[in-house]
């Protein structure tokens, strides 16, 4: 210690209102730091109500200048929240920002412990650890890298379309990747949108066309992202463009191939299993792009080796059975994930009989039934395809707010159920029952819509439906579906016979959300939705810089919120693009070649190929551009020749000693 220059450390303990001060005696912590850590180099220790406020920051800046502080420790919240704030403050006062250390005494102490004496003692240890560590910190320079102005948007539903259009309109290039043959997403399947009852296709189609024809948008449908490498500003993305077996250059979208194709297939995706499509198809009339795709699994030619009816009739020779999957590599600076949701599989609630009782329908099936372009031309009929129901029961919260399935509220189902009630009432005149747990009609003009449906004469029963059955107990119930439910307002059990039941199914994360998250390096919540950086203040960013989440990929939401998020993420992306370059954390490993023995133990450890062996010199070298800073090689080097900035051995060992108050015994 004596050879080292004595550092001048300032310690700042934050009250965070009562968040910290309620459980930790912050005054005592500051006093203790000043008295006991003096020999370490602490020259000043202060406490303040809100260190992150501008006054708090000024306090630090003033001390740096006036007391000549060379190191700063702020004992406050998690570094993930305010590390940047205090580093900036130090920078403003002329101190290298990496000479600031945060000691988390909120998330890691005051919020998780109750005993004030114990929490205060732990806070002291945490502060001691940070002081020991900060002395070993070295001044570092941020690494600046240019930002690629191109953006990747994954998912062509309304959220993805909105996001792509905003960025494209600002003059930057967007790759819009969609797994299905057409963009449009779930919204393209709907008939009407609540609460205004706009025709979904009428408001969506112009946006789809705009995205399809925009000079700044490269539309890649029938495509999937298979690999993502790099980091914010410099992502390298691999995209698999599945073979369409239709030459997009030649195809005019005339539709003759679909007409001539002899193979009829049940359409599980767009028509939700209620309708048919051909083996070569565009999912719907307004599809963008309007080129069909060939469904290899069902095409007679691919199964039996003969047919090719489509090829014979195609007026422009656009059918190409030799097409192969293509791999595209694109470089982008930012990525927006708008991968959407899956509908809850209502068969899982076996007591509601979906899949067993023919006249039980899911919400998406009903959307198709009521859609004028759907399999029944908009006629609301039962499974036999012709009978109009005289009574319809709509069950809310199917698969949502139920600990057997999903705990969360799916947000849209109440309004969806009300919309269905209105459509059934308007088009069939049937008696409509809504079975709900709580009616959730927050947001603009939603509750008014509820009032309107009430006035139309729809009946509402508050209670969770126990069962839908066709086991009649009396003549009145014969041939009907009986809804057995508790009526919690009347305080009794009811059995209500109806002709048709619609399950207002909830939303679920995409079945492959976890894999997609892993691909892009972001995490999922317990429920499986992508996790945002901050649930309130940063709802579209993620913990991985340069990757944004919008729409239902982040959690259940309605169309207006999805559109708002799509636009919000674009603003964040444009902000990054316009900065032209970005500062990266200078956390990198480097080899002291004097000490390297050339044992090559580290060579196989790096998954980013940043470590290379120089044959001529028989030593190892690390490429800082590829190094991600994990530190695995630092830990592995038997000669101690590799060091990692920001997390050096000296820093960590000093922190261990500090946390264990070993330095105090020495002192």
């Amino acid at each position, binding site marked *: 210690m004596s050879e080292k220059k004595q550092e001048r450390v300032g310690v700042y303990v934050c009250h965070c209102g009562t968040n910290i001060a309620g459980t930790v005696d912050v005054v005592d912590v500051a006093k203790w730091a000043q008295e006991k850590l003096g020999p370490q180099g602490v020259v000043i220790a202060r406490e303040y109500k809100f260190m992150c406020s501008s006054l708090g920051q000024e306090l630090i800046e003033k001390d740096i200048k006036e007391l000549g502080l060379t190191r700063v420790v702020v004992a406050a919240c998690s570094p993930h929240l305010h590390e940047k704030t205090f580093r900036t403050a130090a920078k403003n006062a002329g101190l290298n920002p990496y000479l600031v250390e945060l000691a988390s005494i909120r998330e890691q102490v005051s919020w998780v412990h109750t005993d004030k004496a114990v929490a205060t003692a732990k806070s002291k240890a945490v502060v001691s650890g940070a002081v020991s560590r900060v002395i070993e910190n070295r001044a570092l320079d941020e690494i600046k890298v240019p930002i690629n102005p191109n953006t990747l948007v994954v998912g062509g539903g309304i959220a993805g379309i909105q996001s792509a259009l905003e960025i494209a309109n600002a003059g930057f290039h967007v790759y819009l990747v969609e797994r299905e043959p057409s963009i449009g997403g779930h919204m393209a399947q709907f008939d009407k949108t609540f609460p205004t009852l706009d025709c979904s296709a009428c408001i969506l189609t112009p946006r789809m066309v705009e995205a399809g024809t925009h000079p700044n948008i490269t539309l890649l449908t029938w495509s999937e992202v298979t690999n993502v490498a790099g980091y914010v500003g410099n992502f390298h993305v691999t995209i698999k463009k599945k073979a369409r077996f239709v030459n997009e250059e030649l195809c005019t979208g005339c539709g003759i191939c679909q007409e001539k194709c002899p193979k009829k297939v049940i359409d599980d995706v767009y028509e939700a299993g209620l309708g048919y499509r051909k083996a070569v198809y565009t999912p719907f009339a307004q599809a963008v792009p309007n080129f069909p795709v060939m469904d290899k699994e069902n095409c007679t030619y691919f199964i039996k080796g003969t047919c090719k009816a489509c090829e014979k009739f195609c007026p422009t020779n656009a059918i190409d059975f030799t097409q192969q999957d293509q791999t595209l590599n694109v470089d982008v600076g930012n990525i927006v994930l708008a991968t959407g949701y899956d509908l809850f599989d209502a068969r899982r*609630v*076996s*007591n509601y009989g979906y899949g*067993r009782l023919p006249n039980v329908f899911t919400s998406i099936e009903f959307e198709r039934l009521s859609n004028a372009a759907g399999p029944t031309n908009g006629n609301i009929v039962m499974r036999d395809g012709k009978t109009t129901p005289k009574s319809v029961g709509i069950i809310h919260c199917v698969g949502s707010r139920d600990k057997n399935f999903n705990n969360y509220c799916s947000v849209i189902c109440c309004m969806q159920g009300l919309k269905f009630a209105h459509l059934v009432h308007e088009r069939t005149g049937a008696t409509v029952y809504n079975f709900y747990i709580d009616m959730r009609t927050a947001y603009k003009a939603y509750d008014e819509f509820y009032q309107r449906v009430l006035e139309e004469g729809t009946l509402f029963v508050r209670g969770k439906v126990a*069962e839908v*059955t*066709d*086991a*009649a*107990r009396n003549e009145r119930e014969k041939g009907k579906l009986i809804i057995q439910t508790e009526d919690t307002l009347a305080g009794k059990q009811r059995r209500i016979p109806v002709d048709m039941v619609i399950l207002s199914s909830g939303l679920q994360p995409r079945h492959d959300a976890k894999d997609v998250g892993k691909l892009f390096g972001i995490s999922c919540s317990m429920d499986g939705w992508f996790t945002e950086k901050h649930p309130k203040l940063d709802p579209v960013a993620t913990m991985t810089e340069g990757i944004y989440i919008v729409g239902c990929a982040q959690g259940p939401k309605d169309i207006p919120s999805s559109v708002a998020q799509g636009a919000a993420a674009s603003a964040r992306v444009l902000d990054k693009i316009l900065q032209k370059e970005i500062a990266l954390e200078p956390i990198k490993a480097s080899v002291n070649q004097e000490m390297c023995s050339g044992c090559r133990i580290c060579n196989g450890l790096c998954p980013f190929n940043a470590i290379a062996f120089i044959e001529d010199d028989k030593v190892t070298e690390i490429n800082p551009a590829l190094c991600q800073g994990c530190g695995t090689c630092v830990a592995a080097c038997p000669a101690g020749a590799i060091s990692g900035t920001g997390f050096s051995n000296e820093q960590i060992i000093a922190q261990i000693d500090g946390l264990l108050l070993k330095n105090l015994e020495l002192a």
Partner: protein
Amino acid sequence: MNKYLLYPGCSMDSSAKAYMESLNEILEPLDLHLEEIEDWNCCGATEYLGINLIPAYSLIARNLALATKQMDGTRTVVAPCSACYLNLAKADYYMQERPTLGAKVNEALAAGGLEYKAGTLDVRHLIDVLVYDVGLDTIRSKVVRPLSGLKVVPYMGCMLPRPDYQHRWSDHEHPTELDDLLRALGADVIDYPLTTECCGGHMTQIGPETAFELIRRLVADADERGAQMMVTVCPMCQMNIDAYQNEANHFFGTNYHMPILFFTQLMGLAFGKEPGDLGIGVELVSARNALANIGVEVPVTQEPAAPRKKDEGLPMPRRWTRHEGKKEAVK
């Protein structure tokens, strides 16, 4: 050979004798060996747990403790009765879940020189073992007389699939194990939405009117769907539907005739066993006509005891006279 420990339970020896008989008939074709737990006792049925938990759990756990002595290469205890299965599984589960309960139960067992470490055994119902261990393919391969043409509704009863501590069943509300098994035998299985509804349980003893309504719903719906018989996995269900069907008919003025057999009896028939050896023919609502549809002839067994003649009522108490009362008073 697949060896399992068997906890037969009281009913297999009395009301559900046919279940036991038919079970014994199908063991050999399926290469199953069931070793009975020695000196087993009653599981307490559906009532005792409602009265006093510790003695009830101790009563059940005694069987588990005894079973551990016979483990010898197997840790699976099979219970053919749904109530027995539920009670054994429940005791095993809660003794693990609540260590204090486990300790108290073991304190009681210690008095008899026994001990049970919860989780040692795997408690399973007979149909679970047949469907998931033996397998539907094996069962199908043993069928020599397919039951095609026999319209049956599968009736699982309420105690088997819920609360499902070990996640054994395909579904809590509408399990299909029995459907699949009957289909493997070749029977025409009719989807039965009431498969997990209550048969009335012991309400036949304490509130017959409630039980009659539950029985009526089950029988009426099976009849409505064109079933020739109901098939069950539970002695209690079998007894209620069989023994109280006529009383329920009488109560509601209906005239249902819905036989109910154990699934093991149908397995025996499909495997080519003789109806008489499978305990068929002793049921009160006769399955004779239903089985005649598929060419199975049920032998005439002993006639049930002749009902008491109507006019031969019980003697009435003597008439009370004022004189008698006075006599008492004087005395």
